[in-house]
C-alpha cells in the first residue's frame, strides 16, 4: 500500500514487513524482548511527517480515540 508521501512508500514497506513479523511472532505471544523495527520506524516517520506538513494535512492536536468521548447514548 502506498504512503501519503510518494517518496516514503519504500521505507513504509520495509517497516510494515518488520512490524507484521514482530506483531505476530513476538508481541501477541507476550515476548517483550525489544523492538527490532524502531530504526526503520524512525526513518519512515521522518519521511511521512514531512509529507504531512508539506500537504497541510490537519493531524495536529487530535486527541487519541477522540470520538470515544463524544459517543452518543443509543
Amino acid at each position, binding site marked *: 500500500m502506498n504512503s*501519503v508521501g510518494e517518496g516514503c512508500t519504500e521505507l513504509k514497506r520495509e517497516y510494515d514487513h518488520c512490524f507484521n513479523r514482530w506483531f505476530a511472532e513476538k508481541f501477541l505471544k507476550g515476548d517483550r524482548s525489544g523492538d527490532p523495527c524502531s530504526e526503520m520506524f524512525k526513518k519512515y516517520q521522518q519521511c511521512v511527517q514531512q509529507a504531512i506538513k508539506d500537504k497541510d494535512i490537519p493531524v495536529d492536536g487530535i486527541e487519541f480515540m477522540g*470520538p470515544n468521548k463524544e459517543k452518543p447514548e443509543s
Partner: protein
Amino acid sequence: MVKHFFSETDIKSSWDQVVSAFWQRYPNPFSKHVLTEDVIHREVTPENKLITRRLLTKTNRLPRWAEKIFPSNLSRSVFIIEDSIVDPKSKTFTTFTWNINHRRLMVRKMFFGMNSETHAWTRVQREAWISFCGIRDYFFFVMIQEFGLARFKSNQAKAMKGLEYTLANLQGIEGPSRTLKDTAKEATEKAKETALAATEKAKNLATAAAPQKSSHFV
C-alpha cells in the same frame, strides 16, 4: 440527533489471526477507495498494550446533488484517522475511525474480541454514528445521513470481505464462505491491478527515458 448503526458477527478465525490480518488488509480487491495508508504514531504502553494511529486517504464520493449544494465540502480525497488499542492479554482490539477533512463526523468503531463460546472464532462488533456541530452542519447532516449510512453499510460489507480475503491469503487457504465465482472475480480484479501497475511502470519508464532520448538528438 444522531443516527446509529450496530452489528455483530463472527469471523471463523482466531483472534490472533484476525488482528494480524487487520494491519495487512490493504490493498485488497474490495479496497479500491483506499489510496494511501500510513502509521503516524505507534507505541507499546507500560501495560503492554499496542496503541497505533494511522492516517488513511480515501476517495471522496458524494451523491451528485450534494456536490451541487455543498461545493465547499468537495475535495477529491478525504483524510481518515484510525486509532486503535490492541490488548494481547484480554485479547481485545478496539479501533475508532473518523474523517478529519471537515467537522461533519462519521465515526466508525470496530471491536474484535474472542468469541466467548468458541475461542477459535473472533467476535466483531461494528458501530457507526454521525455527529455534527452548528446549524450548517446540521442541515448537511440531515441531507446526507441516509446516503452516509447506506454507504457505510456497503463499505462495512466490503471491509469485512477485504479482511476475510487478507485472512485467507495469510493462511494460504480459501475462506469458508468463498464461492468459485468470488475467486474468479478476485482473480480478474488482481489481473486488472497488475495490468494497471504495469501500465504505470511503463509510463514512468517512458518519462524517465524521454530526456535521454531528446539529448541524443541534440
